[in-house]
């Protein structure tokens, strides 16, 4: 049980952050604090993605050591035969070594499998048994969390001809995009707060609401003066 909980420490942290963020967003009346809460909430999602992409023992997904040096010849041949058997029509080289590492994280409960890629490796390593359901077959016998999936990672190393273990780069890329989106949202939000402050003189949402209500009441009473000040 303790192992179960500790093995998923990342996820607990993410859930914690997420709840804190949402709570701040909804509970706070200060508009800046609400944006802060929103950012915390988004950050938890970034962490979630990064956790997804992490392979135990893997380094950042930049080729180094023998991979970086030997990439040209050790893998090139393999790739050639690979592309012949390739029915997915992939024609680009750079991603191919990384694919193996995608496939390295086999798990059924929270870390990525890329069956398409497993299919591929399956095709040229286990040609006899290679079938479309390879991915799921692979997935089930490894119940461990991503953090403990290194065995599978090492296994897959042999399939791709890479020497080192790398994390999955795709979630990193995704989350870079998401961070940019988050920054853009935050900046728009802050700009809005500035405008709210300019026109209402406060950044407390309950005070803003009170002022709005008083104007609305005045409008209903058809009091032209207050309406004028509201605009």
């Amino acid at each position, binding site marked *: 049980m303790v192992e179960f909980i500790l093995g998923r420490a990342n996820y607990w942290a993410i859930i914690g952050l997420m709840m804190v963020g*949402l709570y701040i*967003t909804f509970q706070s009346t200060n*508009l800046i604090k*609400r944006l802060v809460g*929103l950012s915390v*909430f*988004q950050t938890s*999602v970034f962490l*979630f*993605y990064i956790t*997804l992409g992490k392979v135990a023992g893997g380094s950042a997904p930049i080729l180094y050591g023998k991979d970086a040096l030997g990439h040209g010849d050790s893998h090139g041949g393999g790739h050639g035969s690979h592309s012949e058997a390739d029915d*997915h*029509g*992939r*024609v*680009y080289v750079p*991603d191919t070594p990384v694919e193996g590492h*995608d496939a390295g994280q086999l*798990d*059924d*409960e*929270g*870390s*990525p*499998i*890329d*069956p*398409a*890629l497993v299919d591929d490796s399956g095709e040229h390593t286990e040609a006899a048994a290679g079938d*479309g*359901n390879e*991915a*799921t077959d692979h*997935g089930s016998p490894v119940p461990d969390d991503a953090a403990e999936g290194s065995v599978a990672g090492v296994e897959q190393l042999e399939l791709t001809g890479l020497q080192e273990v790398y994390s999955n780069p*795709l*979630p990193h890329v*995704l989350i870079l*995009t*998401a961070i940019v*989106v988050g920054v*853009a*949202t935050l900046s*728009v*939000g802050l700009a*809005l*707060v500035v*405008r*709210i402050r300019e*026109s*209402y003189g406060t950044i407390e*949402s309950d005070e*803003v*609401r009170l002022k*709005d209500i008083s*104007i609305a009441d005045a*409008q*209903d009473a058809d009091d032209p003066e207050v309406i004028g000040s*509201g*605009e």
Partner: protein
Amino acid sequence: MIEAIMASSPDFLLRHAPILLVITPLVLAGISSFMPNGRLAWCLSILATAASTICALVLLGEVQTTPGGVVSYALGGWAPPIGIEFRVDALNILFLLLITIIGFLAAIFSWPTVAAEVRQEKRALFYAAYLICFTGLSGVAITGDAFNLFVFLEISSIATYVLVALGGNRDRRAFPAAFNYLIMGTIGATFFVIGVGFLYAATGTLNMADIADKLAQSGSSRTAQAAFAFIVVGLGIKAAAWPLHLWLPNAYAYAPSFVTMFLSATATKVAIYALVRFAFTVFSANIFDPGTDFVFLFGPLAMIAMLACSFQAIFQSDVRRMLAYSSVAQVGYILLGVSVGTAAGLSAGLFHLVSHALLKGALFMAVAGIVLTYQGTRISDFAGLGRAAPLTMTAFAIAGFSLIGMPLTAGFQSKWLLLQAMLDQGWGFAAAVIVAASILAVIYVGRVLQAVFFQPPANPRKVRQEAPLILLIPLWIMTLATLWFGIQSGTVLALTNEAANAAIPMIEGQP
């Protein structure tokens, strides 16, 4: 007409229509932000939306002529599922057409109201934001990649927050409205992205068609279910599905007229598209059975939305708020059609979506015309306008009749289809809710129409003054479309039927 466009379009356009549809407004958005004055930016926005509309028509032709009905475009030559794919089938071509055509009409109509409501130095930027929003919406509709969908969703949303906030020149309440929209919208988008993360965890791919295949093979898992939950909540917020709609009334009521018009006709619709895409195509039947699960999920919420928000609409004193609440109720109609889970129900829901986009666009255009000439959006401000602005208000009345569901309007056709879909399933209660909500619509539309046509003008200074011609033309195009689709619904019906069948391949062939 489509054949003619197909025949006359160059090979380049035929091949690259999907990306041109999205990239043209994006590039022109950048250019228009540097325009010295708003009028040039306006012309650019018309140009961009017109180009996109042509692309959408070409795509329609391609979808209809391609065997299998799927046009796939690999971005940068990186074949899916690794590369990002733009994937157009019968379902999203419907939405692409809707967005681009309404975007085009909205762009034409926009200038007078923008000139009146947005400060001069902001106009070029306003159009840039509009084009970015347009890009985002059409991107959502065209992309076949789950994460890319999120990015486009946020592109459109962030632009939308800005557009809503620009209403602050007229009424400062636009700022808090935009802020709340931002908070809710970002939470929705983040929920969506969590769901996409779970999907990636479950399948290891981000291509939606690929995800669907993988899920169909692997069967249901907790991860996939969690993904579904997050995606539904996330998109539900964007689509303003009850009870996640609280951002909408204020945002619609205080945004610049043009923005309200454009958003009401497209923004929530696109989120509904994404919802349909995920629910029916991505989470294929063995994860989630549209026939049963959706019923319990969306059916009741949709019915509550229809009744509760129609009821709230009755008590609004501001026409735009009233129409905003009505929009939430109409989203309920659409989701009710979707929730039946049959092709007939989905087709009815989509038809209602199209007819609602047209009629709500027309209604908000008419309101924009009134705001322009008479200022004021309260019902009392509308008193006696039937005499002062007969052309605008007749269009308003026709669109209002369509909202009620009077015969000979598109609204009637869609309600007919919805009722039939409900009764086919034996859902007498749902049919009863539909008609009850329609009666509530009679009340809230009737309140405005009565003020417009049967009350003396509250303000005797109101002289006879129509909205400018450039505003009336798109208004009447949409109004006549509403009428035309009520009399000859065949064109749209064929599109929605195809779309529904594309979305539900599993149960195709059922009535």
